[in-house]
């Protein structure tokens, strides 16, 4: 059962630059699908078309069978640069999606407080974004996306502006959170290790033309904790194989 179906997506920007050239893939319900590929391959553009933020030149995106034309309450977006309002507290930023939907103040703040706590920021409800580190800001972005209770979470390189140590901790926390929430996630990243570590399914995009080169399901056994996963043969083999796939396109 797929939550999102992307069919023959083409996007041409002004000036005839073709960002997407027939991208097709399915996103199974309740799973985490990564989109990975070299920079300039249209990962973020694909995600924004799914979000309804960018209009495709041709092709379709369907969410639960209904075509996407605009943003909707079934999808929540996590931005690479966080997109937090500097004049609002952590709590108001986290509650902003609900505020825009007209949820009464008490109710939306209760919901936001719950997710601020779940992403590990309790105590910082009244802090402002400039007082937080990059990793903490992205946690606020994640809390905002979770608070609107959308079925599908769209994450655009959420950890790109976060340093490596914090990134690993954040990946753990994300997986733990998602296992409670049972969301469908589309996750854009340029890190092969990250994709193999967090994903149920990986869509590999290539550049020039921007198409899907391969869709793989690593199915790494996550039962043994993060260190044993990162050392397991299956994990290392998948990283190696995807690297091999992408290398072919980089050299051309």
């Amino acid at each position: 059962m797929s939550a999102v179906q992307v069919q023959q997506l083409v996007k041409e920007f002004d000036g005839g630059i073709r960002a997407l050239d027939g991208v097709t893939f399915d996103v199974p319900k309740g799973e985490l699908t990564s989109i990975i590929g070299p920079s300039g391959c249209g990962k973020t553009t694909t995600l924004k078309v799914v979000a309804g933020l960018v209009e495709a030149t041709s092709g379709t995106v369907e969410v639960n069978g209904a075509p996407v034309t605009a943003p909707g309450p079934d999808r929540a977006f996590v931005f690479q640069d966080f997109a937090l309002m500097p004049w609002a507290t952590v709590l108001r930023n986290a509650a902003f999606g609900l505020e825009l939907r007209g949820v009464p103040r008490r109710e939306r703040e209760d919901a936001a407080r719950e997710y601020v706590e779940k992403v590990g920021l309790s105590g910082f409800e009244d802090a402002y974004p400039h007082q937080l580190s990059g990793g903490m800001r992205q946690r606020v972005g994640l809390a905002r996306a979770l608070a609107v209770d959308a079925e599908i979470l769209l994450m655009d390189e959420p950890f790109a502006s976060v340093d490596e140590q914090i990134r690993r901790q954040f990946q753990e926390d994300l997986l733990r959170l998602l296992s409670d929430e049972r969301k469908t996630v589309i996750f854009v990243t340029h890190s092969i290790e990250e994709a193999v570590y967090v994903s149920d399914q990986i869509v590999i995009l290539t550049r020039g033309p921007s198409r899907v080169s391969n869709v793989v399901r690593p199915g790494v056994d996550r039962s043994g904790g993060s260190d044993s996963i990162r050392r397991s043969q299956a994990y290392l083999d998948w990283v190696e194989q995807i690297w091999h796939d992408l290398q072919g396109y980089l050299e051309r």
Partner: protein
Amino acid sequence: MATSVESHLAVARGDRPGRVAAWAGRPWLLRSASILVVLGLWQWGAWASVNPAFPSCTATLAAFWELLVDGTFAGAYAETAGPLIVGLLLTAIGGVLAGLVMGLSARAEWLGLPLFIVLQASPSAAIVPLITFVYGIGFTAKVFAVVLLSAPVIVLNSYRGIANTPRSLLEMSDAYLASRRQRIWKVIIPAGSGLIFAGLRLGVAQGFTGAVLAELIITPTGVGDLITYYRSVADYPAMFASILSIIVVASVTVTLLQRLELRLFRPELRPA
């Protein structure tokens, strides 16, 4: 946990221990020192120069005190305040609205932007005398002078504040289903408030210039009259005191406006 939150926020605020903190905790100390240095240089300059038209700092301050106590300033400002307040209210409301519309609509931008850029670049002081041909020498002419000087900077800053809303915040408001009204009130205006208020502060300062200019050039009333009168009778300390009073009143107004901005739009910049 609570202490770690506190210490994290303290670091983020830039609190530093030791001697630096002792200074940073008392900014008024540095500020008064800087004012004292300027006044000292003034006193020395007047003492070193032989020009009787440049009064010393102490003579000016003495004259200032006298004019303040005998009610001369109060009377003059009561007169100047009328056109100044009316003019500033007109530009503050109309100017911010015009900037808002120009920032939101490409057509209004195309229509209005060149006008205000030309107005800003034009030598307004040279236009002020021409106002009398149209509006005579009364109240309206003075209001017009205030508007002429303060409008361009208010309109252009508001426009820039609105037009330069960060793209990612606009995308965010789209993704979280903001209506057009919500997008303007909850994202675009708060994001632009820094530039809008910077424009208002500059505009208020320009408005003071316009009001005094009108009183100097069109008809001598209010503070402009004080300056003209004391110059004609060669009472230079009183003349300088009148000019000083304009600086003081304008600075206080601008500071109050800054407080208002922090209170309304920028809670994150408010000192804890």
